[in-house]
Structures are given as structure tokens and as C-alpha cells.
């Protein structure tokens, strides 16, 4: 079961070693950052069955934490990362506490509404460029090292990707992960056994948001720029597409989905400016014919 993800990580690690140049490293950096965000969404959507249409919100919160601390000249990851993750986690705790009172379509709409609030809130931050966005003075340092700099970013993104994959894998296999999966399968049964599904799901949302906040820190550094678009509903939709295309419930599937979406956008964009005309129908076909997503397809061989 771990063959495919390990192969995937090995291939990603080979890119800088083999000296693959051109646009590839930048494109894959972007895909890996999205991969981290998509895995965090997969944890609640795939394992927990919580279809959040607002997962771009913690991404934007993480990115704007970098920008705001940058303005205050606080640029070390030792401060930036915990603050970004905590802010994203608190956001999920408050909004999740409300959203989890609902199910199904209402949950989707409420998470979307909360994410839109974040989007408009950061759009109105005049000190941080408002709708135009904000360019960072400098990238985030790690204990004074330039590990998130342009030259090192690829490796940093890969390390975070692998660590997050490992952490989410452990949590999914734990008692907590089992309770979360059970709550998706049969909520009434879980309750009758004596587990409060609400608390389990809320904790899962906080964990997912914290990881997505970390992805937001990476995203801000990768572009050296933050914009409200990080928190747009289209971005939330992109993340859902990545998870579903990759195969909901599969962590490495989420990475594959992120790779597919980022590469497809770029590749089709080079082909024609009307690329969404190909991308859209392509997505529909993928959902119709790729049951279990890319990960499911690979598993069946």
C-alpha cells in the first residue's frame, strides 16, 4: 500500500538530483504546496466525509499570517509557522463548531460562507494591498537559514509534503482516525457506541486547518506574494477537485490530484487561452470514469 506514495516521493526527489530544469521545478513546487493543502482536505473530506467548500480559508489565513508578520519584520519560521497554524486552527474551531451543527448541503454552504468572510476580510486589508495583494519584503527564514529561499524551496516543499503525508497517515490509522471514519460511515451507530461524533469531527477540522495553514505559509513564500485569491471560493473548489480527482480517502491520491490539476492548468494554458473548455469536460470525464480517482486506478493496476 505504501509503494505508490514512496515511488511518487522518489520521483519528486529525483527532479533536482537529475538537474531537470526549465519550468519544471517551479511547477512542481507549486503542485507540492497544493498537495499539502489537498491532503489536509482529504483528511476531513475523504476520511471524515465532511465536504468543506471553504478549505481555501485556512490557506489564506496561513499566507496572510506571513504577510502581516513580514510587515512587522518577524520573518523566522519559529514564530511564523506556529502563529499561522494556530490562527488557522482557531478559525476552524470557531467556524467548525457552527458548521458541524448542520449536515449535507447546508454544511457545504456554511463552510463556503465562512471562507467568503475570510476572502472579503483580507480583501479589505488596505495595509496589505487590499485586493491587489502584498509583496513580501523577504521570504521566511528557518532559524536564520535560507531554507525557504528560491534555491532551497523545492527541497523544503518536498520535506513538508512527506512529513505531512506521514503525520496524516499515522492519525488516520489511530483510534482517532478510526472514530472519524466510523462517524462518516454510520453516525447513529457511533453515537450509540458512546463516541460523540461532533467532537471527533471538530478536532479533525482543526487538524486539517492547521496543516492547510502551513501550506499557506509555503504558498506565500513560493510566490513571495499574497493575494485574497488564495482564499477565493474557486481555490476551495480547486482543492476539492484535487481530492476527488486523486481519489477521496487516499492521501497520496490528493498529491496526485494536485499534480494533475497544476500540470493540466499549465499545459493546457500553453496550448490555448481557452483551456477551461478542455479542462472542464476533462474533469467531468475523469469523475465519471475514474472511480476511486487516480489512486484507485493505480491500485487496480
Amino acid at each position: 500500500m505504501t509503494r505508490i506514495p514512496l515511488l511518487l516521493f522518489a520521483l519528486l526527489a529525483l527532479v533536482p538530483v537529475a538537474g531537470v530544469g526549465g519550468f519544471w521545478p517551479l511547477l512542481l513546487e507549486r503542485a507540492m504546496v497544493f498537495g499539502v493543502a489537498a491532503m489536509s482536505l482529504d483528511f476531513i473530506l475523504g476520511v471524515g466525509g465532511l465536504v468543506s467548500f471553504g478549505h481555501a480559508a485556512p490557506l489564506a489565513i496561513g499566507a496572510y499570517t506571513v504577510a502581516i508578520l513580514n510587515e512587522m519584520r518577524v520573518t523566522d519560521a519559529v514564530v511564523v509557522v506556529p502563529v499561522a497554524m494556530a490562527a488557522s486552527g482557531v478559525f476552524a474551531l470557531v467556524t467548525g463548531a457552527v458548521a458541524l451543527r448542520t449536515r449535507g448541503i447546508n454544511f457545504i454552504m456554511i463552510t463556503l460562507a465562512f471562507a467568503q468572510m475570510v476572502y472579503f476580510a483580507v480583501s479589505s486589508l488596505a495595509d496589505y494591498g487590499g485586493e491587489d495583494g502584498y509583496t513580501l519584503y523577504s521570504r521566511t527564514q528557518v532559524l536564520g537559514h535560507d531554507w525557504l529561499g528560491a534555491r532551497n524551496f523545492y527541497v523544503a516543499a518536498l520535506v513538508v509534503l512527506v512529513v505531512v503525508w506521514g503525520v496524516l497517515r499515522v492519525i488516520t490509522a489511530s483510534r482517532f482516525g478510526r472514530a472519524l471514519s466510523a462517524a462518516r460511515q454510520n453516525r447513529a451507530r457511533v453515537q450509540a457506541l458512546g463516541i460523540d461524533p461532533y467532537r471527533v469531527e471538530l478536532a479533525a477540522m482543526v487538524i486539517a486547518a492547521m496543516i492547510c495553514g502551513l501550506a499557506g505559509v509555503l504558498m506565500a513564500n513560493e510566490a513571495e506574494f499574497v493575494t485574497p485569491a488564495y482564499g477565493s471560493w474557486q481555490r476551495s473548489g480547486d482543492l476539492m477537485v484535487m481530492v476527488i480527482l486523486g481519489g477521496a480517502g487516499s492521501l497520496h491520491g490528493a498529491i496526485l490530484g494536485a499534480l494533475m490539476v497544476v500540470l493540466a492548468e499549465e499545459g493546457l494554458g500553453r496550448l490555448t487561452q481557452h483551456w477551461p473548455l478542455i479542462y472542464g469536460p476533462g474533469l467531468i470525464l475523469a469523475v465519471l470514469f475514474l472511480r476511486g480517482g487516480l489512486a484507485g486506478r493505480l491500485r487496480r493496476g
Partner: protein
Amino acid sequence: MQITGLRKRYGALAVTDGVDLAVRPGAIHALIGPNGAGKTTLIGQIFGAVHPDAGRIVLAGRDITRLAPHRRARLGLARSFQITSILPEFSVLENVALAVQAHSGSSFRFLRPARGDARLNGPALAALEQVGLADRRGVVARALSHGEKRQLELAMALAAQPVVMLLDEPLAGAGPEEAERLIGLLDGLRGHCAVLLVEHDMAAVFRLADEISVLAQGRVIAHGTPEAIRADPAVRAAYLGEEG
């Protein structure tokens, strides 16, 4: 478990109209009654899905009338559902291991893998052996036959080491052979915990029950041993009334 003066109205209709019921430890207590007698609403109140207008439910000395369903379960109330309720994607063993985990209140542990955890699998396997499903432990639960799903539910209830087990029509949909095996299993529960059995199969009820309460129009119209209930004219009237 002691239920006193329980009342629930839906508009003008008193669905539960002052129900008193005591389930003794170790006994099988059957709850019977014609359709529309209020059994489902009464069960809903015992499990916290429906809130009573008045009255009290006490479990092992604690008032649980207003507790959330999962809190009641933690205090020792286990159940099977009228429509079989399992975790379809989990294996048989994982289903029961989850019940053990829920009982131990350890669902907020994030590191150790649950799959090979002997502290979960040991008691789970013991419960599966008790219901005769141990050799099916690796099967995905959705692939079980109807009767086996019933056995699995029973194992999940047992694994929680309940004070009171509520079985909502455990024989519904079971074939004659399956029913026979389930009746044998239920008979074996006597002494383990108190059982509140809601069942339409009268032959099974009279074989299994130590006590029977008869519910009609939201009230307990009779209570006693199977022999006493069989002879009770009010019970006969309630059932004949339904048919006639």
C-alpha cells in the same frame, strides 16, 4: 434501569402516557404491544433521540433523562437497532474493536495504530467468540448475511460491557434457522446484563422473557411473568382489538 412517569405528547396525541418500567439486572425484560402502542417513541426516549415532556429515566442510580445519546452509552446503555446498524467499510473485528474503544473512552489518541492494538482486538475477539462470529473476523462487514449482521450488532453491544442492552426487534428479517441461532444467543445473555427486548415474534418472546410489559396506547397495561401475561384478559383485548 428504572423509568418513572414518562410522558411524551405530539400535539393532542399522548404517545407515551405515564410509563413506569423497571428492568432488573441480569433479567430479560420483553416489551410488547400492538403497532402504534408507542414502543418506538419509548425507545427513542430511553436512548435520547426523543426528549420526554415529563418523567425520569434512571440508569444504575444516575438520572439520564436529559443526557446526550453518547453520554448514555458511556454509562452502560447499549443497543441494537431495528434496522441493522453496522460500519459497512470496516472488518467484523474492526466493528467490535470500535465498540471496545468507545467503551474505554479513548477515541482521542492520535499516534498508535488501532489495527494491531491488542487492547482493542482482545476484548473484541472475545465478544465475537461469544456470538459465534470469530471465524468471520476479517470479513468486510457489508459482505455479511443479514443474520450475521445481527450477530455482529450483538457482539458490538456485548463488547461495551453494558448495564442494560436494548434489542429493537433483533429477529426481524431473520429466517427460521437464523432466528433459532439468535434466540440461543439471546438466551445466553441472561445474567450478563439486563436486556430490554422489543420483539414481535411472540413465540420467541415467551421463550426468552423473564418478565413482560405490555404497552398499548402509550400505557403499560400489564406487567408480569410470561404465564401471567398469557392469561391476562386486558392483553388479549389489546391484541384482539388491533386485529378486529
